[in-house]
């Protein structure tokens, strides 16, 4: 089941195919337009960007230079980028390290009350992030974790853990039981079963899960802006500093936005087939 499989259209007439293909193109272009325009704007001068939309302009990289200059005192792009990268990678790794064994315990050698456990995990997402900020802020202050990367790592792990457990469980359930039993009979313990059978077979699902975790962690704004106002802040927070109250800023903002979004967008583009496969397997409970 790859993303290249389409439902075969038996007996479909040529013109219908072309018409629907054309419709798909038009729809996609309209839908994608804001992104396209944003990228174009990022190469314009502020004048051009704020004038009545026109397509001809002199492209320049000045906006990119502007936004990546170290802003002395204020959050710089380099700093925010490094913070984001470290925080997202570490938290995603921790999520996987916690969720993979948990999914094993829910799918392969199921604990008695696995349904309840699964529901518990999902229910933890019902408490809005905004509501828990208060106790978390206080705890973070007590533990001297404000303005650190660690606090965001911990929180992003907590945010993504339920999703990861749920998705990984669905993938593990798909693994043929016989294969695991064969490994058991052959003498493999948990680690051997994981490395020989489970991880290789569930690899696409694990990749899809990891990608979703990366997306949500990288794009997170609220915790970052509340807990790390001085140091340890992330790219989404940095983007908002490129909005001025005076003067025109759209081109600059566009450049900043492009920089902020590129990593995740590229990752998503490259892995989209895996994501579809992953979501497909994850959806069938």
């Amino acid at each position: 089941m790859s993303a290249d499989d389409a439902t075969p259209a038996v007996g479909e007439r040529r013109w219908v195919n072309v018409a629907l293909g054309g419709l798909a193109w038009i729809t996609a272009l309209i839908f994608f337009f804001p992104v396209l325009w944003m990228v174009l704007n990022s190469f314009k001068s502020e004048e051009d960007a704020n004038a009545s939309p026109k397509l001809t302009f002199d492209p320049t990289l000045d906006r990119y230079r502007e936004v990546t200059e170290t802003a002395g005192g204020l959050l710089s792009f380099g700093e925010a980028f490094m913070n984001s990268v470290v925080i997202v990678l570490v938290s995603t790794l921790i999520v996987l390290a916690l969720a993979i064994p948990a999914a094993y315990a829910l799918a392969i050698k199921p604990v008695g009350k696995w349904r309840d456990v699964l529901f518990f995990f999902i229910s933890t997402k019902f408490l809005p992030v905004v509501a828990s900020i208060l106790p978390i802020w206080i705890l973070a202050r007590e533990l001297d974790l404000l303005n650190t990367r660690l606090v965001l790592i911990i929180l992003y792990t907590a945010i993504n853990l339920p999703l990861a457990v749920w998705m990984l469980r669905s993938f593990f359930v798909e693994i043929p039981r016989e294969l695991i039993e064969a490994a058991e009979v052959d003498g493999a313990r948990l680690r051997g079963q994981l490395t020989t059978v489970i991880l290789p077979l569930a690899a696409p699902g694990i990749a899809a899960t990891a990608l979703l975790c990366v997306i949500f962690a990288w794009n997170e704004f609220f915790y970052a802006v509340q807990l790390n106002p001085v140091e340890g802040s992330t790219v989404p927070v940095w983007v908002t500093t490129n909005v001025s109250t005076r003067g025109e800023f759209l081109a600059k903002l566009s450049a900043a936005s492009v920089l902020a979004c590129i990593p995740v967008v590229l990752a998503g583009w490259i892995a989209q087939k895996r994501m579809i496969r992953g979501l497909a397997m994850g959806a069938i409970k």
Partner: protein
Amino acid sequence: MSTTLRPRVNRVNPPKMGRRPLSDSWRRRLPLLPALLFAILLTQVPFVLSVYYSLTDWTVVPPGPREFVGLDNYRELFRDDFFGDAIVTSIQFTVFPVLAALVLGTAFALLLDRKFFGRGVVRTMLITPFLLVPVVIGLIWKNQMFHGLYGVINWVIEKLGGTPVEFVSEHPTLSIIITLVWQWTPFMMLIMLAGLQSQPSDVLEAAKVDGAGPFAIFRQLTLGHLRPYMELGVLLGAIYLIQVYDQIAVITGGGPGSTNVPYYVFQRSIGGGWQFGLASAYSIVVVIASIIIATFALRVLSRLLKGEAAA
């Protein structure tokens, strides 16, 4: 016959005797414990603390002693008109985007579920909005698309002979809903696409041989097959959409028509109100509301589809 193949004692582990029913169930639980403990610690502790705060009259500005006031905060909540408005807005920000994204996402998935020229590129374009940073989505739509003077949408409206619309100031709710739909349609599309591709092709072929046209096949076979996928999309979408904060913060900064409950809670607590006790009570209510909305949405959708499939 080869002599090397006579059975040999080949065990490294000495054989263990006896039964071990007790340790078996604990051995099963062990891999689950790290994740479970982590989740409990990081979610239940704040939750319990929130419940505790919600029963006090804790304010930070002006600083006041934290005294136990029982359910006073909750009573205040029912008298608070703004909270009622926030609930309405929350519902608008959840129900409409979920449904709209589901419908659009399904439509896109249907368009994508066929071979045509440049299919990969089209799909790549369509999933991009979901990958963008939400504050970027908010800022770009506000300043680039919705802008009263320079916005792209108004440019198109003017070209078509209409008068420009101040989206953000005059239609805050709609503006934010548009950005949410734009953001979440790809998510629904991906799930629906997975659902469409997992349909067994022999069932579809049998239907074609039986003489069913594409619309009939869709209504009677495909929709039923897609139901679990739709449920998943609605559930996950609702969970995330109830908590929307980023777009509100950067597009309208709150204000009538665009303040949902999380944002209202924020305003009441560290966003300026500094009434921690009251805000905590509100957030507890949000948790309950989230569960209700998610359950309700699922039931409605299931019933809809059952009706369709039977038609």
